């Protein structure tokens, strides 16, 4: 990926973050921490990887994407709107009465491949989609984004042991390893420990990357598209709340909206970051 492309994707990630914060502030509810940690991954997926058509969201040959960590719906909806599935203005109905944009993603929203929110289920349904792809001898891939807190759920490990058995090399899972869950640090609440080795032991091909480095995310996905009979897991090491200083590395903003003062500070920081990205490479 060249510098200009990287810059584009960084700008989109910045837009996703900004919109997510605006949506959550506007709704006075939602999940900023996990939205911000996932924004760079979402940006690479939607603006560089996924073979989808926003004009035809149910196109049968599309790549599938399942947002298993459904609480990061703000960043997800922002990505879909920026991709052109629905107007950006609709984002400000998020979590309001009568809105199509429910608190957690539902398949009624154009571009959403699976309803999620109860943790672990998206990961399992993605296995079903991958099996369907195999049965249909289809070329598309299934991408699924899961959270590290989500790994506590038993269904994740049921699915984990199942995918290699079915040779699902059309399945690419990305783990948003931001190290915090609602009540605190993942390593205090239920330590995942050496998660890479655990997943590898289940028969997956595992890579570990910096989940905020656009090029690393993209390269890891390209490597994962290899059809070698194995499902792929990319452990994306991220920062919870990435991009807003006072939301970083804390569980405090897992599921809490910023107040007015915090909101203004967050937007200012994201604007500063945007200006920094715009200056990149323009020597």
């Amino acid at each position, binding site marked *: 990926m060249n510098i200009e492309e990287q810059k584009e994707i960084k700008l989109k990630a910045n837009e996703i973050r900004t919109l997510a914060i605006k949506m959550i502030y506007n709704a006075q509810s939602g999940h900023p921490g996990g939205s911000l940690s996932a924004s760079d991954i979402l940006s690479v997926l939607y603006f560089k990887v996924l073979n989808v058509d926003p004009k035809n969201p149910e196109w*049968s040959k599309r790549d*599938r994407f399942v947002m298993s960590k459904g609480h990061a719906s703000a960043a997800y909806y922002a990505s879909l709107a920026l991709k052109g599935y629905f107007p950006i203005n609709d984002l400000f109905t998020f979590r309001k009465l009568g809105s199509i944009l429910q608190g957690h993603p*539902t*398949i009624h929203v154009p571009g959403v*491949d*699976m*309803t*999620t*929110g*109860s943790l*672990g*289920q998206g*990961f*399992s*349904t*993605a*296995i*079903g*989609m*991958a*099996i*369907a*792809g195999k*049965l*249909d001898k289809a070329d598309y891939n299934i991408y699924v984004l899961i959270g590290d807190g989500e790994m506590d759920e*038993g*269904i994740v490990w*049921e*699915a984990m*042991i*199942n995918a290699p058995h*079915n040779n699902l090399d059309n399945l690419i899972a990305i783990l948003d390893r931001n190290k915090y869950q609602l009540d605190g640090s993942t390593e205090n609440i239920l330590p995942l420990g050496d998660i890479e080795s655990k997943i590898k032991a289940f028969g997956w091909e595992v890579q570990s990357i910096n989940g905020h480095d656009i090029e690393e995310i993209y390269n890891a996905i390209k490597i994962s598209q290899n059809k070698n009979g194995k499902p792929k897991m990319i452990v994306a090491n991220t920062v919870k709340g990435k991009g807003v200083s006072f939301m970083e590395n804390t569980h405090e903003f897992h599921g809490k909206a910023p107040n007015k003062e915090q909101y203004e500070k967050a937007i200012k920081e994201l604007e500063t970051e945007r200006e920094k990205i715009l200056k990149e490479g323009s020597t």
Partner: protein
Amino acid sequence: MESQRVAYGETLLEIGEDEKIVVLDADLSSSTHTIMFGNKYKERFFNMGIQEQNEVGVAAGLARSGKIVFASSFAVFIVGRAYDIIRQSIAYTNLNVKIVATHAGLTVGEDGATHQMLEDIGIMSGLPNFRVIAPADAPETRKVIKKIAYMDGPFYVRLSREKVPTLLNDYEFELGKGILFKDGHDLTIISTGITLSIAVDAANDLKAKGIDAAVIHMPTLKPIDSELVSKYAKNTGKVITVEEHSIYNGLGSRVAEIIAEHGTAKLKRIGVMDQFGESGPGWALLEKYGISKENIIKKSMEIIR
């Protein structure tokens, strides 16, 4: 006597040529008889291992990709263990998954209370988009499976382990319609699932006592045939419900709601009182827990008085 679960397996085999059909099981395929499909259509049969939650999640993913999915296990496991996944990923999404559970109710027998699901009609009827069906015998099971395979959206079908008397060879299954098996004027016995033969036996004995009982079989618990219930509640003024399910939230509760709303009849409910079952032969358990001809006759005499 014929087995509903064998009828289920045979029907899957019969409709299995359709490449859209995919069947999942959780290491009970030789008991649920989905293996009959699995042996012939290996590539479209997935034994998930003992993981009901992932089974249901995978079913949802397959259905979202255009497949007609049958997912089976024992009722106590697929409903009990996988409820949240059924709720979020199949009911809320309104996806095309048919959950066909065998070994429902007391007639599981010797395996005991851990395996005897008595709450599933209530649990599954509470889920929007789900239709809930309890066939009475093997021929009706065949008709139900064939029909729902080509009706869009989620279904829950409740089958038993025991072989049951064949009664409905000559009856069509229509979703949401009760079957008037025997007409009568003095009281109405309404049954769902495999207790139909017990209700019919009771009605025959009542006839000898000069009591003319109507017998209605209610295969669809949701949407229930409230029109037929209202009509017979009004005409006979006395209703007895019979089911191999908890007294709470099953057929009896639904009929009570309909009667209460129309205010037309006296009602007595026969089912498992608020308690667990135990080990023993299936039909003997039904007797012990009052789901019997004798109890129907006793309750009939009480309600007639």
